[in-house]
């Protein structure tokens, strides 16, 4: 056996590991979900038909295959509930991401400009809230926002409002919760790109006649775009599928797609429709990911 063989086999295995992981923990489960989304709901165990039984022989498998249909997808495309849910999810994610960017960018920029020894402290301040359970933090917000909560007490004491204001179960409360929970995901990638930037570039811009604001728009901002893209994706994608925050903080008159999916799955016990909802959601989220991938590839090529 040559040395090349000795060394190349483990190397090849290592390269295959992430693929193996993807196949085992993403592609295979997704195959199940996709299959269920093409099935029909039934009062049975499991609660859908047809069921593939490999032991029943080839003919039975063939009939089972024939029973698969796109009915659930057809319904998703025609029933208003699903369409409004998808739209609401996209709008909520879009608005939240915009707010997150508007708040996160200045914070990340400020962090990157701090003296070195303070940057670590600032980073800790951003991360520390994560040490508390996510659910507890959202429940804390319920406490603050409720009728006789902290916020109303302060506003009443300061005579800003004459009577308690309804905060809880509104879209404002939901946006507050989302922005609060996702802010670190926006700040950290932005901070990473901004902190890496060479200070001499800003001096060069100033030297060549750019004002401070000009230098920001012409140099800092374009160079931070990869961080912006990463932060936006890191927030936008999970927010579209967000279930807990809207369920706890928003009203019940309009649902996000995550909530609709939950209802189908746990309340209606309609696994096929729930699966179809999930498949469409995945397809929707693949789009921004592909754009991001394209952008990154272009950057790599430029290098």
């Amino acid at each position, binding site marked *: 056996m040559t040395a090349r063989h000795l060394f190349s086999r483990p190397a090849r295995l290592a390269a295959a590991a992430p693929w193996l992981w993807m196949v085992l923990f993403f592609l295979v489960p997704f195959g199940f979900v996709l299959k269920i989304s093409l099935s029909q709901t039934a009062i049975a165990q499991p609660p859908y038909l047809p069921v593939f039984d490999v032991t029943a022989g080839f003919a039975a498998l063939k009939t089972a295959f024939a029973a698969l249909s796109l009915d659930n997808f057809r319904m998703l495309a025609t029933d208003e509930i699903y369409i409004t849910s998808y739209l609401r999810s996209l709008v909520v994610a879009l608005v939240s991401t915009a707010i997150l960017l508007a708040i996160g960018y200045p914070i990340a920029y400020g962090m990157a400009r701090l003296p070195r020894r303070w940057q670590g402290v600032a980073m800790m301040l951003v991360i520390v809230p994560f040490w508390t359970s996510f659910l507890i933090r959202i429940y804390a917000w319920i406490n603050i926002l409720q009728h006789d909560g902290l916020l109303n007490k302060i506003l009443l004491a300061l005579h800003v409002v004459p009577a308690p204001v309804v905060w809880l179960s509104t879209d404002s409360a939901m946006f507050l919760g989302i922005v609060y929970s996702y802010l670190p995901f926006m700040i950290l990638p932005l901070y990473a790109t901004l902190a890496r930037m060479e200070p001499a*570039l800003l001096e*060069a811009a*100033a*030297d060549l006649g750019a004002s401070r604001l000009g230098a920001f728009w012409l*140099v800092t901002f*374009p160079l931070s775009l990869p961080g912006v893209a990463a932060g936006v994706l890191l927030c936008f994608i999970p927010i579209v599928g967000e279930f807990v925050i809207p369920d706890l903080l928003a009203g019940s008159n309009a649902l996000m797609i995550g909530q609709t999916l939950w209802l189908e799955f746990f309340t209606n016990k309609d696994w096929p429709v729930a699966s179809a909802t999930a498949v469409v959601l995945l397809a929707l989220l693949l789009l921004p990911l592909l754009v991001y991938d394209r952008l990154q590839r272009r950057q790599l090529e430029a290098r």
Partner: protein
Amino acid sequence: MAEDIITSEPQMPAAAGMPLLRIESVLKKFGGFVAVDRLSLDIAAGEFFALLGPSGCGKTTLLRMLAGFETPDEGRILLDGRDIAAVLPHQRPVNMMFQNYALFPHLNVRDNVAFGLRRAGLPRAEIAGRVAEMLALVKLDGFAKRRPDQLSGGQKQRVALARALARRPRILLLDEPLAALDKKLREETQFELTKLQRRLGTTFIIVTHDQEEAMSMADRIGVMDSGRLEQVATPRQLYETPNSRWIAEFVGDINVIEGDVESRAEHRWIIATRDAGTIVTAAPRQPTDKSAICVAVRPEKIKLSRRGPAADAGQAGTLNRLEGVVTDVGYLGGVTTYQIRLDGGASLRASLANTARLDVDAYGAGQRVVAWFAPDDCVVLER
């Protein structure tokens, strides 16, 4: 300081009235550290001036104050007689070429060069013309659409130069412009930069720690140490007439022999040294009344032979003759350096040009030699 040096070489033509740039007792501190210590300097229009010094001597801080990135704590900086302390970097008619070029990585070569012109609000057609002119100047036509990361080190350096010159600054500041290039390219670029500066007539101020770079390019060199200018002089004055032992040892290679003044005649001083006998020197240009001094001789001023200078060598009688043994020979191609242990105990370095390909007179280690040099070839400096 510069005025103290009397020399046969022509001085830079003095500008009528005010110099282009006048630095007046400028002081800059960082915390308790004095980076630039009440430094004064005049630079004339069209001059190629080099600030030379070891790292941490304050030369870069001085340059950054000229660019406007640092403000002096005390003193004034006058450009055309006008104090520019309050003028922000982006409003100064001064441009800088940064040490690592600081090219904008997201812009191509054309947009990098056009950056300063666009900020100046020039009409589009003029910008295009000026960019083309600049790229031709640095021989980069055809590279307009390349990104900085698609360029070699030398090309990046030229883009940085074109970008800094595009705004036609009164003064171009160059911060270690050649430090990132390899030796061969550096030598070529030194030559190119000098030619370019002569052609444009722009005042160049270069900061460097490389004395060869400073010597080969600059009209005048200011040698800095600990925030002060130790000497301001032409390269030749600096090398042949250093005004302190520190300068003599910092610039080039030199033998320093300590001794005491035995007699001071009008032209000739006689120095008694501890380990190299008696040495006759020319009277120093800056007379000193101290008796503890040192004699400094450049290695290439020392001649070697087996028997000493021939009797008919003109002033042979007044030559310094020191006898000793060769201990080490370093062959460098163009020159050979010889390490000699003198009979008095001092150690001396001599470097001889290898003028003939087959040198029958080469000396080996252990060879007894006579080292000799003229009184005019050594400098008397305070210890």
